């Protein structure tokens, strides 16, 4: 299988006053198309920092990241935005929807940022919402929807532009177990049927049901 995302020897250091904090100490990971990898680890182990680097939201201190065959150069912010736009989708624990936009508009706006506008964007947004089972909630604002429905909008938004990799941060943490199961089933479908690579940062043991592998980070290192 072709690698969707490759991380080699990733380190990340932060300066805090005179002190240098080493959050990541050389992590390497490769995720193939259609593969689901869970990233686990205790709080403060560096999971979120690692996924931020893979998501081109944060630059690594050293090491190398490749997304869909493209080298990530953290010194070029516009290039990072291009990679995020073309190859990456995000699902957040807090959903991070735009509260002033309806479900349809939330998805449509993401499409607009990817250069898809007008009737085409409206049609595609509608289809994505249909796919996550929100056909009858398209014109509702997030405040009028349940946690599970919000997360499904977030997934529909993450699917905009058919990204190669979806990065999900604790996607089931704010959901009850029934809805969490539905979301996991949806993730499984995305990987198996569409061939997307999924990296899921989680503390939730239920996620293991759908993963191919579990990568455990401890003290900034990938545990064996």
């Amino acid at each position, binding site marked *: 299988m072709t690698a969707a995302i490759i991380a080699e020897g990733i380190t990340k250091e932060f300066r805090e006053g005179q002190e240098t904090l080493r959050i990541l100490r050389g992590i390497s990971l490769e995720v193939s198309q259609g593969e689901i990898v869970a990233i686990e680890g205790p709080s403060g182990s560096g999971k979120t920092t690692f996924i*931020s680097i893979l998501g081109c939201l944060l630059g690594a201190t050293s090491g190398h990241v490749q997304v869909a065959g493209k080298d990530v150069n953290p010194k070029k912010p516009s290039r990072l935005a291009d990679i995020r736009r073309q190859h990456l989708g995000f699902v957040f624990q807090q959903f991070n929807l735009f509260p002033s936009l309806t479900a349809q508009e939330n998805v449509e706006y993401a499409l607009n940022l990817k250069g898809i506008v007008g009737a085409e964007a409206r049609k595609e947004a509608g289809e994505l919402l249909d796919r996550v089972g929100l056909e009858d909630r398209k014109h509702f604002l997030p405040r009028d929807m349940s946690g599970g429905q919000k997360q499904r909008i977030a997934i529909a938004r993450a699917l905009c532009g058919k990204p190669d990799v979806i990065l999900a941060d604790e996607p089931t943490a704010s959901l009850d177990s029934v809805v969490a199961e539905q979301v996991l089933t949806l993730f499984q479908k995305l990987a198996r049927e569409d061939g997307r690579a999924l990296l899921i940062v989680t503390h939730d043991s239920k996620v293991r049901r759908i993963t191919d592998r579990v990568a455990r980070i401890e003290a900034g290192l990938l545990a064996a």
Partner: protein
Amino acid sequence: MVDLAWKMLFHDKLRFFITLSGVAFSVMLVLVQTGLFGGLLENATVTIEHMGADVWITSRNSPNLDFVHQFSESNVERVRALPGIKRADNLILSFMQVSLPTGAEETTVVYALEDFAAWGVPWKLTAGDLADLKRGPHVIFDEFARKRFGDFAVGDYREVNGQRLKIVGTTKDAKSFTTTPLAFVDYQRAQQMQPDLLRGRASYILVKLEAGADRERVMAELRRILPHNDVYTAHDWAQRSRTYWVENTGIGFNAFLTVFLGCLVGVVVVAQTLYTSTMEHLREFGTVKAIGGSNWDIYKILGKQAVLSAIFGFVLGYLPARALEPVIAKADLKLIIPSELSVTVLVGTVLLCLIAALVSFRKVATIDPALVFRV
């Protein structure tokens, strides 16, 4: 395209209202203050604008229309003799005392000409006949004088500089910068009323040029034959009069200060509300970045919000400012809001709101994109 800027702005209606109130207040302050300033300056030169003279000959170094020295009225003969002059007449402008029925005295600015009709003054006669000024000891007062001189009507009498004059007409909008009411009397009558100062003397010579006359050449010749007078075009004389009031009375600084404070209030309110809004929407802006947006996409959102706030705020400030015009007119003040001023204030408002948004731009540029993962 989904208009996130617009939706965000209208989603929090209370905040938007506060922003608009700040902008509207500033716009109104600037328009009203500048409009009043313009009105006062117009009063300072309204007679110059309406006289229709091409050239004004004044006493040496006269600072403005109202502060005059008299000079020999025979100068006008030399002016009339020059080629290129169509008409030249003496004008008297003098402050005189009006005795009121109450026993008090008020001041009036007397304008005296041989032939008012020839110079189009007064330009708004609301009662009476201009020709009556020559038919006896008569006077025409501006309606504004009622506030100072008590109510009067055509046919009433008032004592001006000790002479009992019959009011034969009233005018409108004839005002002076100092708000002293204007009176119009016959040229010789004025000289009789203030003989020590005015006998054989005039305050100005009004000059109308022949069509096609070389104005610069005629003015140079006037300066040559009247070395103890100054010669101005009507425009330059009006400008000199206005400049005097602006620079020497503090009114210019006062207007500038109010406009500056208005702008400052607007910028501070907009900067504050936009910045607070940006801080509260940081996660959303971080999300815009995460889903592929650039800093530029966020700048466009903030910029558009600033421009929308400016435009809506301008409208909300402009309308009440216009509505104040008749109210201010009742207080015998002029509020002049020409379209050039409105456009300038609109453009200024948009620019200042964009400047106010710069603080938010800076904040957004330094967003840690990884904040989207924080709970």
